[in-house]
C-alpha cells in the first residue's frame, strides 16, 4: 500500500505536484494517468525518496522510504530504462542491486529468465535496444520479489509482443495480491490493464476512481441527428417522451441506443433526416476533456496574458 497525503513539489514558481492525496491499494493494478508534464514522474520519484517533497508526505506500508530495511524487498520500481551504467553487463547490474539488499545471487538468474534476457546477460547494457533496456529495468524491479511494484511508462519502446507481455505481467502480479502502480499518458493502454484510475493534470488530482466507474461515466453512447426540420422533430420526440439535447452546431443528440425508434418516429411524421447515427464517446476523448479542463482552469486563474507586442513597438510609442 502506498499512501500520499498532500504531496507537493515546487520548483521555484512552478508547482510540479500540487497537494496530491490518494492511496494505492494492493491486489489491483492502479493506473496513474496524465498528459506529459503532469507531474507523474516527479510524484514517483518522491515515492522512492529520490526527490524531497516541498510539503506533504508519502508512506510505503506506513513507513517512509528511507526507513525501509532492504527497500527492494518492499517495493520495486522501473523509473526509466536509462537509469543504469551502459558499460556494465546486465548480470552485473542486477548483481550489484541484489547485493546491496541482501538478495541471493540465484535470484539474478531467475529474473533474467523472467524477462527473457538470459541470452544477453553478459552483454553490456549500452548495446541494448530501448525495449531490452526496459526489460532489464523490470528485472531490477522484480529482483527483491516485492509486494509493491511501480512502473513509469513501462510500454514505452516495447514492440507489440513486449506490450502484451508487460500487460499480462502486471495483471498477474496484481492477481498475486501485490500492489501495482503504473503510469501512462495513454488512456487506451490503461483501459486494458488498470482496475483503478488516478488522473492528474498540472500536478493536481483530477480523478481517483475505479476503471469501471470511469468507463460508465465517460463512455456515453448517444444518437446524433441532423434534420432540416429541427422544430418539428423536437416536438415529435418530446411528445414521445424522448429527451433531446440540442448541440451548438445544429445537430440533436439523444442519449442511449435508440436510433431505430427515432427513425420510425421520423418516418411516421414524414420528417426528412440527413443523419441518424449512433455514437460512442471514446475514453481517450473523456480523458482529454478531463485534462484539458485542468489546463483551462489554470490559465483562467492567472492574470490575462499581456498583448503580444511586435519588436520596436515601445520605441515608436515613446518617440
Amino acid at each position, binding site marked *: 500500500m502506498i499512501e500520499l497525503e498532500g504531496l507537493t513539489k515546487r520548483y521555484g514558481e512552478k508547482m510540479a505536484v500540487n497537494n496530491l492525496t490518494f492511496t494505492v491499494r494492493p491486489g489491483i493494478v492502479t493506473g496513474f494517468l496524465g498528459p506529459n508534464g503532469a507531474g507523474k514522474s516527479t510524484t514517483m520519484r518522491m515515492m522512492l525518496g529520490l526527490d524531497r517533497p516541498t510539503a506533504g508526505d508519502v508512506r510505503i506500508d506506513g513507513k517512509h522510504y528511507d526507513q525501509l530495511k532492504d527497500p527492494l524487498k518492499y517495493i520495486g520500481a522501473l523509473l526509466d530504462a*536509462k*537509469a543504469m551504467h551502459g558499460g556494465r553487463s546486465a548480470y552485473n547490474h542486477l548483481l550489484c542491486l541484489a547485493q546491496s539488499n541482501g538478495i541471493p545471487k540465484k535470484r539474478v538468474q531467475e529474473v533474467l529468465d523472467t524477462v527473457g534476457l538470459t541470452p544477453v546477460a553478459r552483454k553490456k547494457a549500452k548495446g541494448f535496444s530501448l525495449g531490452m533496456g526496459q526489460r532489464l529495468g523490470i528485472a531490477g524491479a522484480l529482483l527483491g520479489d516485492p509486494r509493491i511494484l511501480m512502473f513509469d511508462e513501462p510500454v514505452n519502446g516495447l514492440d507489440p509482443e513486449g506490450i502484451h507481455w508487460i500487460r499480462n505481467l502486471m495483471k498477474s502480479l496484481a492477481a498475486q495480491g501485490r500492489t501495482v502502480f503504473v503510469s501512462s499518458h495513454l488512456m487506451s493502454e490503461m483501459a486494458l490493464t488498470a482496475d483503478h484510475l488516478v488522473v492528474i493534470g498540472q500536478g493536481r488530482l483530477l480523478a481517483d476512481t475505479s476503471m469501471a466507474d470511469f468507463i460508465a461515466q465517460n463512455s456515453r453512447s448517444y444518437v446524433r441527428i441532423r434534420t432540416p426540420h429541427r422544430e418539428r422533430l423536437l416536438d415529435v420526440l418530446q411528445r414521445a417522451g424522448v429527451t433531446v439535447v440540442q448541440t451548438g452546431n445544429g445537430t440533436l443528440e439523444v442519449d442511449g441506443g435508440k436510433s431505430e425508434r427515432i427513425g420510425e418516429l421520423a418516418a411516421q411524421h414524414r420528417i426528412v433526416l440527413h443523419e441518424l447515427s449512433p455514437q460512442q464517446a471514446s475514453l481517450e476523448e473523456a480523458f482529454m476533456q478531463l485534462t484539458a479542463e485542468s489546463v483551462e482552469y489554470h490559465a483562467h486563474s492567472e492574470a490575462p496574458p499581456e498583448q503580444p507586442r511586435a519588436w520596436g513597438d515601445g520605441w515608436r510609442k515613446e518617440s
Partner: protein
Amino acid sequence: MATGQVIRSEWTKIRSVASTVWTLSLAVVVTIALGMLISLLSKNEFDNMDRADQLSFDPTFISFAGMSLGQLAMIVFGVLVVSNEYSTGMIRTSLAAVPQRGSFLFSKITVATGLALLVGLVTSFVTFFLGQAMLGEHGAYIGDEGVLRAVIGGGLYMTLIAMFSMGVAAMLRSPMLSLGILMPFFFLVSNILGNVPATKKIGRYLPDQAGSKIMQVVTPVDNDTPYGPWGGLGIMMLWVIAALAGGFVVLKRRDA
C-alpha cells in the same frame, strides 16, 4: 541497512566497468615509466650539477617524478567512480536500492579508496626500486633514513588525490565539469602558484604541494616550509575531508 551489503555491491560496481581498469593501469604505467626516465636522465646529469644541487639531490623524490602525470589518471579514476552514477542515471537506481545516502557514499568511497591504496602502494614501491636501479650509484636504499616513509607516503599521496577527486565529483556531479576543474588545477595552476614567489606562501598549502612533501627524504638547502612530511600529508588530509564533507552535504540535500 547492513553496510557490508552495500560495500559488496559497490565492489561489484567498481570491478564491472572498464574505466576502473584503464584509469588505474594508466596511473601505474605513467608513474613508473616517467619515474624511470627522469631517474635515468638525472643520473647522467649529476656530474654537471653545482655543489648545492648535488647536496640537495634526493634520489627517492626523483624516482617519484612520474607522479606529477600519474596523479592525473588517479584524478580521472576518482572522478569517474562517483560521477558515473550521475552521468548514466544509475544514481536513481542506486539510491532507490540504498536510500541511506550517507551509507551509499561512504561505501562507495571506502571501496574506491581501498582499491586506490592498493594500486598506489604497489606503484610507489615499484617506482622506487626501478627508479633507484636507473640512478645506480647515486640511488638510495629502502633502509636509509626516511626512505620507507617516503615510499609508503607516495602510495598514500596517490590515494588521497583520488579521494579528493571523489569529493569534488560528489559536489559537482558532472564528470566533465569535475575533470575540467581538477586536471588544469593540479597540472598547471598549483605548480604556478607554488613556484611564483608572490604566491608561494599560499601555494604550499594546496593539497598536492603539501601532500607531496611526504615523498621528500633530503630537505632542500633553502627550505623554509613551515611543516614537515607528515604535517604536509595532514594538510592534504584536511583538504580531502573538506571535499568529502562537501560532497556528502550536496548528496544529502539535493534531489537525485
